[in-house]
């Protein structure tokens, strides 16, 4: 008994345990998502997050301890973002042909994301710092945090809202676009990337490689546009 406690207190502090937990939880969630026929609600990110949160809660492990191990996975987000250059390059002829629709869709999606988020939240009585934290929610996390700070939001809250936006977008997109009978993978991918950044892009890559490539472009372009537009639009809602 005492030995087991000692072993646990050693393992619980080691990155190995939480890195392994992250990979195992994701493997189980991905397998379950496959079993569920890739149903929209069976989102592997969401399921893995809930699974790990339960483990952390049961073992009363602080997030900081968990992140010591999980940071190795988190770190790969940077190289993975750089790697998006390859599908962009592979789809170059398609991208060139879609330049005008992409720019139009970028403005429509980016403006809608910022204005409706602020409008709905304000109508529901949200004001001040909390409201400003919501403005850049569709941009990729590092941009959103910077924008939030610049317009008087709370970066920690923005980080939470950005992730939830990504997961919501990944869950909503497929059923909604199927219901609308949108069959253009370029349009589907691009829209998800603009509205739901990297998590939307991850989802798009699982469905169709063209959608994934266009989603990556949507994410990158909206990072830039949100940084320019959000501070201007946020002023109107102060």
């Amino acid at each position, binding site marked *: 008994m005492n030995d087991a406690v000692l072993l646990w207190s050693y393992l619980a502090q080691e990155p190995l345990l939480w890195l392994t937990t992250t990979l195992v939880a994701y493997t189980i969630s991905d397998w379950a998502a496959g079993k569920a026929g890739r149903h929209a609600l069976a989102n592997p*990110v969401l399921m893995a997050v809930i699974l790990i*949160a339960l483990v952390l809660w049961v073992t009363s492990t602080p997030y900081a301890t968990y992140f010591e191990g999980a940071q190795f996975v988190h770190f790969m987000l940077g*190289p993975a973002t750089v790697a998006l250059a*390859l599908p962009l390059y592979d789809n170059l002829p398609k991208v060139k042909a*879609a330049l005008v629709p992409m720019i*139009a869709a970028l403005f429509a999606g980016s403006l809608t994301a910022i204005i409706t988020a602020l409008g709905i939240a304000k109508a529901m009585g949200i004001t001040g710092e909390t409201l400003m934290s919501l403005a850049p929610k569709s941009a990729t996390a590092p941009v959103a945090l910077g924008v939030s700070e610049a317009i008087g939001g709370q970066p920690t809250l923005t980080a939470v809202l950005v992730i939830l936006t990504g997961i919501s977008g990944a869950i909503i997109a497929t059923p909604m676009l199927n219901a609308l009978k949108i069959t253009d993978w370029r349009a589907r991918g691009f829209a998800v990337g603009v509205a739901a950044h990297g998590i939307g892009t991850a989802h798009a890559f699982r469905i169709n490689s063209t959608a994934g490539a266009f989603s990556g472009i949507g994410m990158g372009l909206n990072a830039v546009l949100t940084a320019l537009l959000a501070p201007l639009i946020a002023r109107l809602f102060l």
Partner: protein
Amino acid sequence: MACAAQPRIWIAFRAKIGTDPHMIRAICILLLFQLAGESLSRGFDLFVPGPVIGLAALFIALLIFPKLAEVIRVAANGLLAHLSLLFVPAGVGVIAHLGTFGTNGIGLIVALIVSTALAILAAVLTFVLFARLMGQRHE
């Protein structure tokens, strides 16, 4: 590439067992471009994140040196196929920080979900409309 001197059958065998002869070089390339991107982003105080600048720079490099594509292909596609996994640690952070919602939880969640759905709609419909105006067929 270095594998040019190797017998064809050996290359085919390695491809079959799934070894990526370029893996270390591929990771070097991705990290170097990220590093360059981070340096530019921080050095010039740009608002665009380092990895996004790295993405743009690697894209330009691919246009100039098309052979680069085959060096990074297996590693890049491997990373992108499991992009979802990479968001899990940050996602767990969301649960740890749900307290930051305070009393505004429901309002924030409603605004976030409705706004995200509307943004997808606006973007997808605009894309399809402009594609049709330009006389492009559906793919």
